[in-house]
């Protein structure tokens, strides 16, 4: 006879992560609304360097991804894992360290990003000390998770747990590989990769952050919470196995679809395309498995807001995972990439899939751990409709804007010149769509505020059952040999992790190793030289101000782009770019061939107030660049750090860097003086101008 063991589930940690989810969700979405307004009315940049679009767009993305969604993941994982493994979390202390450590990291991000401390890699902007903290806290989470798995009372790990394991191991690999940096100072570092290779690593990371942070943990949560909400088992357990392994295997290859038509080797781009298309199958396998779980329970969907949220979440997942492969077709990508289409795509996923599933889980879980009923089911239903309208008002105008702008960029007159040679004309055309997008965002945020009130009132009504009693028989030693291989795997967490690791490493290795090892993949160009000391400082200011959030630096080999910008970009031009700054969105024009296009004075005026040179421009003004001083003392250490990662600065160049910098700066200041502008040669604007004037000019020599 098996002995029943008594134990408690830890609900307090679930509640804490739940509250953090709500708080950071409100913060992240409010910042999102603010930057949406900035893209219509630049006055919302407040002429402050800490609140410009370039600096706070990463605050929005990081807050929503790592703070809102991150805390939601931990809430869902801590709740469901205890229950499917029939045990309390491994260590309450580790749970607490995990919780507070994660919140402190978020706070550190919220402070450092507006200050301009950024590595510029999208969704990995945090500087190296915070990176280390992220890894440490992630390891704490991992130990707590595996400790829980080890002391489980359920022999086999349910599918949700596999997704959590894959999430843990893959995010660890991605984050570490994409964060190899040489520190220069406490909050400045250079990536060890450059140019094309840096781009490949970043988008391998960027795409799989979507896969393994925004997707796999949520699929795990779907596999637990959806059966609970519908009160019936998942449609097909076998499908979940196929879904799991094929999803984690294929996803990892798809990163290069973010770099189509760039100077990334063609064969890597093709791999990205092929695997992106294959990705439809496992993604839809998951969606179908979720939706069919509701078979026979559709009557509940009519009345239960949590199920309504789940249905829209799954539908949004299905739409986004169909759209993704379509966008990775080169012909579609040629028009859609760098436009608002990508923004719409990502928001269908974030608002629909992640947001709505998070809300469903919050509405389901908070009343349960507070031993009460939801304060108002009607309010939750209103939230559902307001949120759904918000998503539509967000996405549809953005698709519209994308098609309008993408086609305008490519349109030629019958005489063979660009129909819209002034980039700004294409931006102004879509401002009404941006206004509607802000309305959509505001609606969505309003729904979240309503949810917050509803949940706070629910919490007030009930009492938190911090320790929920449960009982289960102890796990006895296994006496039979299990026939099915997968069944054996389901009770071996360490082996499961290792196999998952191997599966996710294959794609990355096949794509990266040849790009790094075979020199013909990145043909060098003799005339391309490292940046001068002043240009290097200017480049770091470009990074600090987050220019990459609106401007790309890669001209694609299309007639419409070479006519607008100049010669298309070559891999060899980026070999000293630590990091690469190709960007992913053209709110403003590409800047790779900006060097020498305009006089110094034009750049000065443009940065002082963009509307001087470009009436109607929505770019923020950068008056502080005229008054702040270049950090000349850091030049040598920056050049030395770059030497370690392979930039061939000579001893002489490093030793004379400060004099060289001052000489070049003086020349620019003198030139500006001849145009009637007096400015100190050590003002930041001088370095910025030097960098911009250097961009893309080496191949002309």
């Amino acid at each position: 006879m098996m002995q029943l063991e008594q134990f408690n589930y830890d609900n307090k940690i679930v509640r804490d992560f739940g509250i953090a989810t709500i708080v950071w969700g409100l913060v992240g979405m409010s910042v999102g609304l603010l930057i949406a307004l900035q893209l219509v009315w630049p006055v919302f940049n407040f002429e402050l360097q800490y609140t410009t679009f370039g600096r706070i767009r990463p605050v929005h993305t990081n807050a929503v991804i790592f703070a809102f969604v991150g805390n939601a993941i931990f809430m869902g994982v801590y709740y469901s894992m205890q229950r499917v493994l029939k045990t309390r979390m491994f260590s309450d202390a580790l749970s607490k360290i995990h919780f507070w450590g994660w919140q402190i990291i978020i706070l550190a991000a919220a402070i450092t990003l507006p200050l301009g401390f950024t590595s510029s890699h999208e969704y990995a902007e945090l500087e190296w000390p915070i990176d280390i903290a992220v890894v440490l806290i992630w390891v704490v989470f991992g130990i707590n998770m595996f400790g829980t798995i080890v002391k489980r009372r359920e022999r086999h790990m349910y599918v949700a747990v596999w997704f959590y394991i894959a999430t843990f191991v893959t995010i660890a690999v991605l984050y570490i590989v994409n964060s190899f940096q040489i520190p220069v100072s406490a909050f400045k570092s250079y990536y060890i990769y450059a140019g094309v290779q840096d781009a490949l690593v970043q988008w391998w990371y960027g795409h799989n952050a979507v896969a393994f942070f925004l997707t796999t943990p949520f699929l795990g949560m779907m596999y637990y919470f959806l059966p609970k909400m519908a009160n019936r088992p998942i449609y097909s357990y076998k499908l979940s196995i196929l879904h799991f392994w094929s999803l984690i295997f294929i996803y990892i290859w798809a990163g290069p679809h973010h770099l189509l038509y760039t100077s990334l080797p063609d064969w890597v781009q093709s791999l990205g395309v092929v695997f992106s298309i294959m990705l439809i199958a496992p993604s839809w396998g998951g969606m179908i498995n979720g939706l069919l779980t509701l078979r026979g329970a559709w009557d509940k969907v009519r009345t239960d807001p949590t199920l309504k949220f789940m249905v829209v979440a799954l539908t949004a997942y299905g739409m986004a995972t169909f759209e993704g492969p379509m966008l990775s077709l080169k012909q579609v990508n040629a028009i859609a990439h760098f436009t608002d289409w990508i923004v719409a795509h990502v928001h269908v996923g974030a608002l629909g899939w992640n947001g709505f599933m998070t809300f469903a889980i919050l509405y389901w879980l908070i009343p349960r751990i507070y031993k009460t009923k939801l304060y108002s089911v009607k309010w939750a239903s209103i939230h559902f409709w307001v949120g759904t309208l918000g998503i539509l008002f967000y996405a549809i105008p953005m698709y519209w804007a994308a098609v309008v702008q993408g086609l305008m960029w490519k349109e030629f007159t019958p005489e063979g010149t660009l129909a819209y040679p002034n980039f700004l004309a294409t931006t102004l055309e879509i401002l009404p769509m941006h206004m509607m997008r802000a309305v959509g965002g505001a609606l969505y945020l309003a729904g979240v505020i309503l949810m917050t009130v509803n949940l706070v009132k629910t919490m007030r009504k009930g009492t938190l059952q911090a320790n929920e009693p449960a009982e289960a028989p102890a796990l006895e030693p296994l006496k039979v040999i299990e026939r099915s291989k997968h069944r054996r795997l389901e009770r071996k967490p360490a082996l499961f992790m290792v196999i998952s690791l191997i599966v996710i490493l294959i794609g990355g290795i096949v794509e990266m190793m040849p790009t790094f090892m075979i020199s013909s993949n990145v043909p060098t160009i003799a005339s391309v030289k490292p940046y001068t000391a002043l240009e290097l400082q200017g480049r770091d200011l470009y990074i600090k101000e987050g220019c990459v959030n609106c401007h790309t630096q890669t001209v694609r080999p299309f007639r419409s782009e070479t006519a607008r910008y100049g010669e298309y970009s070559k891999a060899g031009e980026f070999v000293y770019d630590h990091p690469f700054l190709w960007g992913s969105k053209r709110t403003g024009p590409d800047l790779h061939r900006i060097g020498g296009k305009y006089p110094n004075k034009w750049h000065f005026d443009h940065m002082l107030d963009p509307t001087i040179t470009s009436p109607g421009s929505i770019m923020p003004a950068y008056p502080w660049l005229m008054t702040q001083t270049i950090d000349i003392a850091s030049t040598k250490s920056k050049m030395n750090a770059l030497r370690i990662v392979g930039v061939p600065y000579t001893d002489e160049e490093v030793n004379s860097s400060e004099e060289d910098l001052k000489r070049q700066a003086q020349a620019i200041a003198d030139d500006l003086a001849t145009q009637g502008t007096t400015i100190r040669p050590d003002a930041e604007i001088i370095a910025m101008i030097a960098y911009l004037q250097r961009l893309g000019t080496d191949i002309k020599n």
Partner: protein
Amino acid sequence: MFKQITSLGGNEWYLITSLWIFLVFFIVVGIMLYTMRKEHVDYMGNIPLNDENQEEEKAKEDNE
């Protein structure tokens, strides 16, 4: 349309190898699924529904 994946200038090797790896992988998972016992599959699928305490059940019914 398929030129982008058929003419790779001697780099087809990567593509074909990757596709083979995936195909083999898919077949192995398929065989594994085919050989799984039905009772186990049913048991595993029901795990989320087997974790409730009586009190929880009651709370849920109250909510409905």
